[in-house]
């Protein structure tokens, strides 16, 4: 008890100067940033760089066993990229993925807005039950969805709907996996929305439909676009849920399934080339949608 009175805080014996504190801050930031960059490089960046480089035909001879890319003997073969991309089957797969994903993301953006509206503005029995459905596609592993779909909508369908080896089967699976995105981006905006503006519009004589069209929908465009981008990116790369119902025929081979098939034949260069294109498509759409969403948001704020 007595000693505690005499105890002085460590700081007062040597108060850290502003400069030493700033130095510590810089050192800690650089150390943490460096560690994190190394970690990111190992698990994501280097592999993706290797994929793009291999895709466009750069192949190193690494038999020297060196870690350093500068020590490797590099060969370039851009025509391999052109051949891999130019194959009709590759184009068909990429195109199928793109239009199916656009369609599924569009349907789910509209349905997502309706679902979010019902969850936020409506009150009825069983609402919580309905809401619990929205997150299931997030939590349920894709292959579980795949196995259930191939049985539910396959040749032995208990509900007599056979979508096996048809684009509609892929479409249903994509609708399932991309369901939560738009709901979860639109819902918080609806919750935060100021009801006064709607009431004001109503008092000024606007019909409920007019209020929806001129007040509610414009503020939902930005989150809807963001949700659309996420849903599209998810769909265009989707594999687990559609790998079984597609059935392994050329007509229903999506881009990711096509890449997987190439790896099964050890055609890594081709797999890397198609991966590069698919990567480009999903990154373009995702950043485009995010950018449009942000600019729309800013314009409305003005």
């Amino acid at each position, binding site marked *: 008890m007595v000693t505690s009175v005499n105890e002085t*805080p460590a700081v007062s014996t040597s108060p850290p100067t502003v400069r030493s504190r700033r130095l510590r801050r810089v050192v*800690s*930031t650089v150390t*943490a*940033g460096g*560690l*994190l*960059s190394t*970690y*990111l490089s190992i*698990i*994501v960046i*280097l*592999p*993706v760089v290797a*994929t793009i480089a291999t895709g466009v035909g750069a192949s190193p001879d*690494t038999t020297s066993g060196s*870690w350093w*890319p500068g020590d*490797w003997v590099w060969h370039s073969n851009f025509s391999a990229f052109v051949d891999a991309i130019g194959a009709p089957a590759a184009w068909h797969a990429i195109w199928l993925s793109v239009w199916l994903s656009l369609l599924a993301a569009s349907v789910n953006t509209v*349905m997502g807005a*309706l679902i979010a509206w*019902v969850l936020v503005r*409506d009150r009825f029995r*069983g609402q919580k039950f309905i809401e619990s*459905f*929205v*997150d*299931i596609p997030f*939590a*349920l*592993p*894709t*292959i*579980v969805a*795949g*196995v*259930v779909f*191939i*049985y*539910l909508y396959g040749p032995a369908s*208990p509900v007599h709907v056979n979508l096996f080896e048809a684009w509609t089967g892929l479409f*249903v699976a994509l609708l*399932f996996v991309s*369901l939560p995105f738009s709901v979860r981006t639109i819902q918080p905006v609806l919750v935060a929305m100021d009801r006064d503006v709607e009431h004001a519009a109503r008092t000024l004589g606007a019909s409920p439909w007019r209020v929806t069209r001129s007040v509610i929908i414009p503020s939902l465009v930005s989150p809807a676009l963001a949700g659309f981008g996420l849903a599209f990116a998810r769909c265009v*790369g*989707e*594999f*687990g849920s559609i*790998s*079984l119902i597609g059935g392994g025929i050329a007509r229903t081979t999506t*881009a990711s399934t096509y*890449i*997987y098939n190439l*790896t099964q034949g050890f055609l*890594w260069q081709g797999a890397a080339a198609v*991966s590069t294109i*698919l*990567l480009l498509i*999903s990154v373009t759409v995702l950043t485009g949608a995010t950018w449009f969403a942000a600019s729309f948001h800013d314009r409305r704020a003005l």
Partner: protein
Amino acid sequence: MKARVAIRLTVAVYLLVLVGLPVGFLLIHTWAGGASAVWRSISSPDAVHAVMLTLETAAVVVPLNTLVGIGASLLIARRRGPWVRVLDVLVDIPVAVSPVIIGVSLVLAYSRIGWFGTALANWGLRVIFSPVGIVLASLAVTLPYVVRSTVPLLREVGTDQEWAARTLGAGPWRILWRVTLPSVKWGVTYGAVLAFLRTLGEFGAVLIVSGNVTGSTQTLPIYIFDSWDQNFDFLGSFAGALELALIAVVVMVILSALQRRERKLHAHSAL
């Protein structure tokens, strides 16, 4: 009023058909052959091995990515500069990229035909077609979860309390443990749980890097796929799928129960 009911019905039917029907079907139809058949299927050595490998992978991946995720969140939310924005974008890559591409990219970097394969082989390390590859693929796909759920919270709580703690003489580690981390506890937990679920269910990336060797490098999702696709074992795939779905449901229920308890505690302390 009529429009409201129509929308309500549309939404209910859409969700019931798209989500309710498949999930209900999985829950009910798995038992068609009897409970003992399901039990025999999930207690087969291959199935048990798949479950164990999946859980072991998660035991490595989730703590590691939670730790890295907290560090990355602190950097992204609390530091400024162009490289922070670059980091922010890079962390999100796995969200934008197909899991199949993640698998292909790991093979092209670390397998024998890949860039660093020869050097790794000289060290006696085998990454691809081994459990190490499975861990690496799971780390890559689950990287964004903790960051995405923690950064917004860090921004929201702000730095006022951290400054207050500092003026009271607390050191940086003490501030981290006593102020910053407790205030974002739920964001971190939520992200870690999502990362856990994703690790359990990851399919595309793991399928490519694991080489799919039954009883050796087969995780539960791949066991489910193989049972259907190669062995025509309908029951095996459905029992595995149910097992995976049940783990997911239990984890989600525990999470929401914890969250409710936390909210109650908060309500008490506010009184």
